[in-house]
Every structure is written in structure tokens, then in C-alpha cells.
């Protein structure tokens, strides 16, 4: 499964993300989460790197889930403070579902991030998706780590000038991050402009179509997996809605 055609992986991603966003019954959502986890590991994503990725997003996910927990006031009231219901069963369910949804999205991102971007581009071309769109996607994905590294460089530069982040109050920290955002965004704009120049200097956009040196071909196994996924997806959606 590790070397599966990118189209199979894209179909799997589509199936999992659509399912987790459309289904709202807790056990179905948990089922999709397990199915996603199994797929993620089968497609060759290392469990440790997946956990590391999840850990990075954990604070954000917890905050979002807590917001759902506190602001969704449906179902049975479970916790009261001074007569006001604070936590409800509906809130807990919604919080957990939100957490699982993000988990599925992150797993999908891990699978596609693990794939050679050129194979993905070739697969998208075979799916008749305009190459300009595919490249925009590739460049956008490429800029995420670049943006992260620019931001951490800026923070290191500040620390080298004597700013001790640990001693800053939360308010000042937020203000500092705000101040750093503008130069980092400006840097990203400069880089993207330079990238556009280099791409054009190598003939990008010269024709409406382009050829691909790298070829992707669906093997018999890829077709079997796609067929199985399609059948499973159709059965699940059919059972859920009808």
C-alpha cells in the first residue's frame, strides 16, 4: 500500500474527509477515525511522526474542542455552576467529534505529505486537473514549512538580541508575535515573487499543456483497492442516509 498510486490515496482522503464531515453520529465518526488511522499506517506513514504531528496541533485542537464543549448547550445537562448549565452531553459529543474531525484531516495531510509531490502532480494531470491549479497547490504546500522556518528564524533573531521569551508576559508575547508576522509575511511574498520569476524563466506557462517525465500508472492492486474503497464508501453513505 505504501507505493499505491497517488490517485488511490487521493480517493481515500476524499472518502475519509467527506465521511467525517458529513456523518454526525458519534460511533460513525469514531469508526471513520479508526478507518483513517488504519489507512494512514497502511499508506506508509510512520506512527511516531504522525504522533509528533498530532502533538504539535494538540493545544489548538484542545482549545477548539473546549469551545464546542462550553458553547454547545444541547442534550442532557451534566455540570451546573450557580444554577447555570455549563457542560451538556451534546457539548461533549460535539467536542469529541470536532477533535476526531481534525484528527482525520491531519492524518489525510500526513498521507499526502508523505507522497512525492511530483507523483501527485502527475496523478492530478491524469485526472485532467489543469496543471496551473496543481502547481498552485504544490507551491502552497511548499510554503508552509518555509513560512514556519522564517517565523522560527525571526524568533531566534529576537532571542539573540537578548529577548527572553520565557520572561515575557502572555500579553507581550502575543504582541511580539503580531509584530513578527508582518516581516515574515513580507519575506514570504518576496520569496513567492522570486519563485514565480524562476519558474517563468524555465518556461512555466509557455503552453496550455505540459508533458511529464514521471509517469504514474494504476496497477491491478490499485484498481482493486479503489474498487473496495468505492464499494465501502457507497455502502456506508447508503446505510447512513437511507
Amino acid at each position: 500500500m505504501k507505493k499505491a498510486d497517488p490517485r488511490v490515496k487521493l480517493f481515500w482522503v476524499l472518502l475519509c474527509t467527506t465521511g467525517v464531515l458529513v456523518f454526525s453520529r458519534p460511533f460513525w465518526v469514531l469508526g471513520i477515525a479508526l478507518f483513517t488511522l488504519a489507512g494512514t499506517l497502511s499508506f506508509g506513514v510512520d506512527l511516531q511522526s504522525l504522533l509528533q504531528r498530532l502533538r504539535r496541533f494538540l493545544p489548538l485542537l484542545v482549545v477548539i474542542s473546549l469551545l464546542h464543549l462550553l458553547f454547545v448547550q444541547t442534550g442532557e445537562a451534566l455540570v451546573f455552576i450557580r444554577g447555570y448549565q455549563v457542560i451538556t452531553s451534546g457539548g461533549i459529543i460535539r467536542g469529541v467529534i470536532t477533535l476526531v474531525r481534525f484528527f482525520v484531516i491531519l492524518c489525510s495531510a500526513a498521507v499526502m505529505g508523505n507522497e512525492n509531490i511530483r507523483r501527485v502532480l502527475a496523478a492530478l494531470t491524469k485526472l485532467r486537473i489543469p496543471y496551473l491549479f496543481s502547481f498552485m497547490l504544490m507551491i502552497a504546500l511548499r510554503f508552509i514549512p518555509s513560512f514556519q522556518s522564517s517565523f522560527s528564524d525571526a524568533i531566534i533573531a529576537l532571542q539573540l538580541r537578548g529577548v527572553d521569551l520565557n520572561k515575557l508576559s502572555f500579553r507581550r508575547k502575543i504582541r511580539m508575535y503580531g509584530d513578527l508576522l508582518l516581516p515574515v509575511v513580507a519575506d514570504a511574498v518576496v520569496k513567492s515573487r522570486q519563485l514565480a520569476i524562476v519558474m517563468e524563466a524555465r518556461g512555466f506557462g509557455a503552453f496550455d499543456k505540459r508533458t511529464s517525465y514521471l509517469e504514474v500508472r494504476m496497477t491491478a492492486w490499485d484498481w482493486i483497492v479503489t474498487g473496495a474503497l468505492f464499494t465501502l464508501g457507497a455502502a456506508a453513505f447508503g446505510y447512513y442516509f437511507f
Partner: protein
Amino acid sequence: MNALEGRQISFSYRKGTSLFSQVDIQVGQGECVILRGPSGCGKTTLCHMLVGIIPRSISGEIKGDILLFGQDIRTLSLARLVQKVGVLFQNPDEQLFFPTVEDEIAFGPENLCLSRKEIGLRIEEALETVQMSAFRLVETETLSYGQKQLIALGAVLALQPAILILDEAFSQLDSFSTQLVKGIIQAQKKMGHAIFMVENSEDHLDLAERVYEMHDGRVWEVAL
């Protein structure tokens, strides 16, 4: 006929603030011409004009004519332009954007809609020229700065341009890579290709047939 010719070219990013004006330059076939000048004088901007990046991607006010083998650059399509003139910039990190060396070299020929067989040949040839054949399937991120610049040069050579523009391409190369690039330039000259280099180091003057100096918005030829 000159391979590259600039006639009375002037440029300003904004109206009324001219970066350079009435610049005349010529680069003959099989000739290497060096342009020198202080930082910020407009050397890179001139390179951008000579390869059509200005006005295609960067806007500004342009006067004069740029001719590639006698043809006005404005009349050339992008596909024909990149086969006539290739450019190598200073920073290889800004020129490589694919995961592997092979992908990087293949990008240009793919844009020209060449066949798979032809692209394969061009990759082989370009990598042999820059002596990086052993790195074909290596991830570009793992390469040294000099190796990255060689790959960037290979990616330009895969388009087989008749004119090569090098914008301070030597500035951060080690001695081995410098000698290699110099050898490639000599070989390109023997093939009748024209080379236009922006270079401030005295070490590379041996490559040049002629040298231009750029200062205060003016360009003039200096004696070697």
C-alpha cells in the same frame, strides 16, 4: 549578427526615477561579456530585462529595444524565449523547488512539451555537463550550496539556450564548483553560445572577451 543586443535601453520602476538610461550592450555568438558595478546599480534588473522577466513578471517603464539574434524580445513567445536565453541567479535556494534533482532538471523540458524520451536525454546530458549524474535521484534539500547551484545551472542547460545569463552565479561557490562552472562556460563558448555574466570578482575576467561597467545609471565598455 549579435546573439544579444540592447539598444538605448532605459528602465525605471516608477515614473521619473530612472534606474539606468540609454544603455547599449552587445554580446556576440561564442562570446562572453562581463558586467560589473556596485550593488543596487541595476545589474540584476538589466538581466531581468534581457530575459524578458521585465516586463512579463515585473512591471516598470521601459524604453529601447532588446534583440535576441536580431529578433525583438517583445515579439517572442515564452516558449521561444526560454530556448534562446537561460538565466542562472545568485541564490540556488530560490531556484530549486522540487524534491529531487531529476524532477528539477525535468521541469523546463516538460514545460516545453518535449517527449519523455527527449526529456530523459536532456536530463542525462545536463547532469553530465555539471558532473552531477550520481545525484540524479538525490533530494535537493540534502545538497550543499555549491551542488545546488550546479543543479540550478543544469536545469537551465536542459532548455539548451543559445544565450546564458549568469547573475553573480559564482558569488558563493567553492573553488571546485567555480572551476567546473568556468569549464562549462568555456565549453558553451566553443559551441557558439553567448554568455552574459554579472560578476564583480576579478578572478573570472579570464573568461571574458569584453567587460562593461555599470554606475550611476550608465553603462560603458572598459578595456581588459
